[in-house]
């Protein structure tokens, strides 16, 4: 049974229930399926997409994306391709398998209780695994996916989280929020959040470490809401989750036990290894002719995250062995910023490092060695970098002129000496 077959069954069972909401538009499962059918014909006949073909779909935060996503699955195209931050500064294409989608969907359904009638609010970008993966359990159970354009418009978020009524039943809501978004809500919307005390069934967080104090505060504001801290990545899938509403004291760094379709082990250097059907199919490498070659994942995936398992089998995260900067759940390779900055006239050398931020956790800072006679113009450099990096969250907020960038004996930049 393919993942799309689960969706087809839901359509048959709940044709008149709302499937997806975005920008004030709403489609029932029957209407969604009709649009999916039309789109699959168009993709086959006009774009000549075939079963088994790898197809990179541009992500748009709207219903059209959902329709195309389901239509590609109906055709049997291999369209579940997400790009992750590569350590070299170049994004890597990750291909997910159909088996992995079912396993990840079931992991979320079993662990958090996705069900028919639940409205799940997506506030993060759908081209990132955290928000994207929620389409799986929602459409497998007959829930409603409510897509928002980020968290800039807080009124839209609170409207979406309020219960809606269909089939004379009051539908509760749930959402996925990165720790920085939760901190933002606690800081600037605590009272509004508290008014939703009986409306939000659960909130999942992940993608970045969450402070125990924030977890505690969220529990106090929403005492009737189930709260989960999840460990997942594009490569591994949804691995573990820690229901921190259940335990008396909150365990710092805990992400809970492995889920139904996941296995976790710790390598000799303390690195977390994940196995099971949730894993990606592999990395897709594009050759010179634009053809994709699959580099299969193997039976186990080494994550670059460090941690340990306690006697109850719960995973605890202790750090990361890679150099990524985690900006409110979005991972940035500092090399990508440095490569871009080196093209700016007057910069002789540079180093991008993380600095702490009260809401986002970390933000990038750029240390710069300037040519003699050149002065720092932060605005000009930032504007140059946005042209190269294209996404604002990647552009450093802080800049500092230094005499030189410290190097190791092998000539590489001594990044660690700046991150203590």
């Amino acid at each position, binding site marked *: 049974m393919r993942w799309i077959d689960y969706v087809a069954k839901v359509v048959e069972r709940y044709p008149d229930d709302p499937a997806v909401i975005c920008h004030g538009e709403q489609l029932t499962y029957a209407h969604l399926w009709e649009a999916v059918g039309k789109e699959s014909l168009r993709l086959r006949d006009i774009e000549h997409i075939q079963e088994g073909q790898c197809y990179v779909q541009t992500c748009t935060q709207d219903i059209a994306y959902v329709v195309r996503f389901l239509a590609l699955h109906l055709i049997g195209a291999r369209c579940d391709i997400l790009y992750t931050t590569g350590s070299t500064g170049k994004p890597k294409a990750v291909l997910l398998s159909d088996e992995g989608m079912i396993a990840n969907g079931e992991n979320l359904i079993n662990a958090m209780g996705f069900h028919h009638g639940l409205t799940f609010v997506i506030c993060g970008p759908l081209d990132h695994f955290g928000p994207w993966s929620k389409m799986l359990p929602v459409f497998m159970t007959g829930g409603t996916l409510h897509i928002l354009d980020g968290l*800039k418009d807080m009124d839209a978020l609170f409207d979406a989280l309020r219960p809606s009524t269909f089939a004379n039943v009051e539908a509760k809501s749930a959402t996925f929020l990165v720790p920085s978004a939760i901190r933002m809500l606690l800081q600037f919307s605590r009272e509004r959040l508290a008014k939703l005390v009986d409306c939000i069934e659960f909130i999942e967080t992940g993608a970045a470490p969450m402070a125990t104090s924030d977890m505690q505060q969220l529990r106090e504001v929403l005492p009737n809401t189930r709260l989960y801290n999840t460990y997942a990545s594009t490569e591994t899938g949804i691995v573990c989750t820690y229901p921190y509403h259940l335990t008396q004291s909150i365990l710092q760094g805990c992400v809970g036990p492995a889920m139904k379709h996941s296995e976790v082990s710790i390598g000799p250097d303390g690195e977390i290894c994940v196995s099971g059907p949730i894993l990606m199919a592999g990395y897709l490498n594009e050759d010179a002719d634009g053809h994709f070659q699959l580099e299969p994942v193997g039976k186990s995936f080494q994550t670059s995250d460090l941690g340990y398992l306690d006697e109850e089998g719960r995973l605890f995260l202790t750090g990361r062995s890679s150099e990524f900067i985690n900006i409110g759940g979005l991972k940035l390779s500092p090399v990508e910023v440095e490569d871009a900055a080196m093209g700016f006239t007057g910069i002789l050398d540079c180093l991008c490092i993380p600095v702490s931020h009260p809401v986002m956790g970390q933000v990038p800072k750029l240390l710069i060695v300037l040519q003699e006679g050149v002065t720092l113009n932060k605005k000009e450099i930032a504007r140059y970098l946005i042209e190269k990096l294209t996404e604002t969250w990647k552009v450093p907020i802080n800049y500092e002129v230094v005499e030189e960038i410290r190097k190791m004996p092998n000539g590489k930049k001594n990044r660690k000496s700046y991150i203590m």
Partner: protein
Amino acid sequence: MKEKIRILLEDQLPLVDLDSETLYQELDSLGVTTILMTLSDEFGILLDSRDATPKNLRSLDSLVALVERKLAEKQ
């Protein structure tokens, strides 16, 4: 006050054109949060997400008006 706010925000949001009359459109959620944090810290005023409206965040002048209103409410 306007120049003080400009200097504070220019430092925190180097990509944003603070002279724009469509400032809200230029901001993402981090930008909105940064403005709320910076102004509440600097002026000792209470701001919440209801204040982050397109009207209040339309321009530097509308930010000044927001701060003045909150300061007056404080007294």
